């Protein structure tokens, strides 16, 4: 046990929270400092596009734990303080406006930041991005006055914001260059099901289309699509993806390539420096390739895994990535490895919808998605974990007992 060595956790998201808990649980008794640019303790960011945006939860209610909890763990909080420089040779961060903070070990949990659109008019007031609580508070305020909302991008954030805005009774138009929502991570079959759900809830979808510019006098008032179509709006929400927050570490000596490169124990190439969560691009030992995952569960678990490594108990981090998305009363869950598949097998009723989708590559179940069918998620996940090969006809057959199938796959492993 490294005794009185100190640890600085840089970041205030769920990876930082998971790390803080796990450091103490693993018996790390040195000083721990959590530094976050945000003025609040870690909160559940996933509600910002859902319950929080709809006004069903307050900022207080979405905190993962109250401030006192960190005091109880003996963790010093540096909230509302951004690190502006790092010197890994001297083991030192510089916090704005200039204070130096030394560390023995550093966990980088800086997460990700929204990609900004550089098209004409996107610098007008009335254009919002959604990542932080402050963003969500501003958006909630704007939404309360808006009638016509334009959502640019139909990834998870765009789809969830569209659903929340419809739930609040707004007119909503969504524009996305892909033919269906979430075509990248979920494929066309599942994307088509989601498109239908949004249409049924009254969202105007402009798929396969791009916004060329925004126009307006003092605020964004209309969007012009590349097709020439003009869409009037009084609020624009952009959700076109995120980028790992690595700017601070450019030129620091860390390897950066779509995130900060770490090994299967969350360690960078610099001794004592670790990374976890949306910012980390790690070597996944079970599938033998690198992954960077932008979801809550991975951030929580990888933060904890990095903390255990820091506390002197490194274990290979080899999860089956998991995430959920809630839109209207639809619950979607995903367990599996992102990446190319060559076959999608649907089970259930796409119209309801109540569907499970299996993503196969060369006959192996790589991922599973459930839409309003939560009971099939964990059996499906077990098939993924076991790297099972299952006849597609068997997967699609409603008479197949997935639990029994998963048990058999586990036993055969």
């Amino acid at each position: 046990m490294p005794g009185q060595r100190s640890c600085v956790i840089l970041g205030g998201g769920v990876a930082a929270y998971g790390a803080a808990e796990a450091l103490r649980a693993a018996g790390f008794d040195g000083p721990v400092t959590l530094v976050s640019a945000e003025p609040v303790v870690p909160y559940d960011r996933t509600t910002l596009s859902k319950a929080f945006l709809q006004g069903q939860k307050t900022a207080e209610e979405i905190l993962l734990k109250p401030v006192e909890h960190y005091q109880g763990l003996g963790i010093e909080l540096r909230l509302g303080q951004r690190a502006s420089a790092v010197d890994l040779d001297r083991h030192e961060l510089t916090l704005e406006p200039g204070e130096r903070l030394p560390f023995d070990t550093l966990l980088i949990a800086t997460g990700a930041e929204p990609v900004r659109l550089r098209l004409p008019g996107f610098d007008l007031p009335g254009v919002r991005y959604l990542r932080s609580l402050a963003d969500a508070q501003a958006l909630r305020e704007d939404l309360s006055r808006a009638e016509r909302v334009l959502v640019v991008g139909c990834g998870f954030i765009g789809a969830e914001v569209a659903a929340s805005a419809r739930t609040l009774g707004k007119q909503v138009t969504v524009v996305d260059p892909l033919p269906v929502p979430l075509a990248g991570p979920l494929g066309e079959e599942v994307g088509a099901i989601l498109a239908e759900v949004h249409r049924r809830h009254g969202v105007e979808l402009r798929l396969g289309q791009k916004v060329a510019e925004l126009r307006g006098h003092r605020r964004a008032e209309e969007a012009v699509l590349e097709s020439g179509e003009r869409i009037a709006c009084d609020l624009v929400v952009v959700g076109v993806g995120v980028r790992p927050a690595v700017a601070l570490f450019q030129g620091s000596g860390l390897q950066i390539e779509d995130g900060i490169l770490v090994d299967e124990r969350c360690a960078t190439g610099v001794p004592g420096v670790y990374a976890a969560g949306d910012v980390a691009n790690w070597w996944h030992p079970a599938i033998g390739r690198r992954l960077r995952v932008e979801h809550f569960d991975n951030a929580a678990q990888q933060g904890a895994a990095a903390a255990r490594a820091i506390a002197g108990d490194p274990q290979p981090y080899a999860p089956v990535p998991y995430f959920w998305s809630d839109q209207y009363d639809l619950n979607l869950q995903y367990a599996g490895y992102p990446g190319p598949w060559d076959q999608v097998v649907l089970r259930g009723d796409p119209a309801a919808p109540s569907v499970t989708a299996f993503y196969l590559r060369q006959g192996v179940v790589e991922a599973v998605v459930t839409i309003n069918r939560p009971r099939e998620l964990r059996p499906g996940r077990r098939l993924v974990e076991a790297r099972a090969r299952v006849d597609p006809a068997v997967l699609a057959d409603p008479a197949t007992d997935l639990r029994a199938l998963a048990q058999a796959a586990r036993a055969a492993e």
Partner: protein
Amino acid sequence: MTAPEGYVAVKRYDEIPEGGIVPFEVDDDERILVKLEGKIYALSGICTHEYAELAEGDLEDHVIYCPLHGSGFDLETGRVTALPATQPLPVYDVQVVDGVVYVSREPRQG
């Protein structure tokens, strides 16, 4: 047979299938019974994250998983084993007397 002090009778032990999650109510409070390797556990039936009925959830390695966002709770202690929930699940004491499962009215402390 009268219930032990502070307990309520819920079900016959034999009515609960091995590996099963059975919902029940005490004073409108939703709870679940779980039978695993013959042992009975009693827990709150509602996830501590948002609103989900854990009777629709799933069991794996002595953890019950919420059907909506995958929070995990240790069957024995209610401790959170997987986020997004951060509050433990209330657990109740269980006694099996003469083939009847009794559950404490009040949650176990600590």
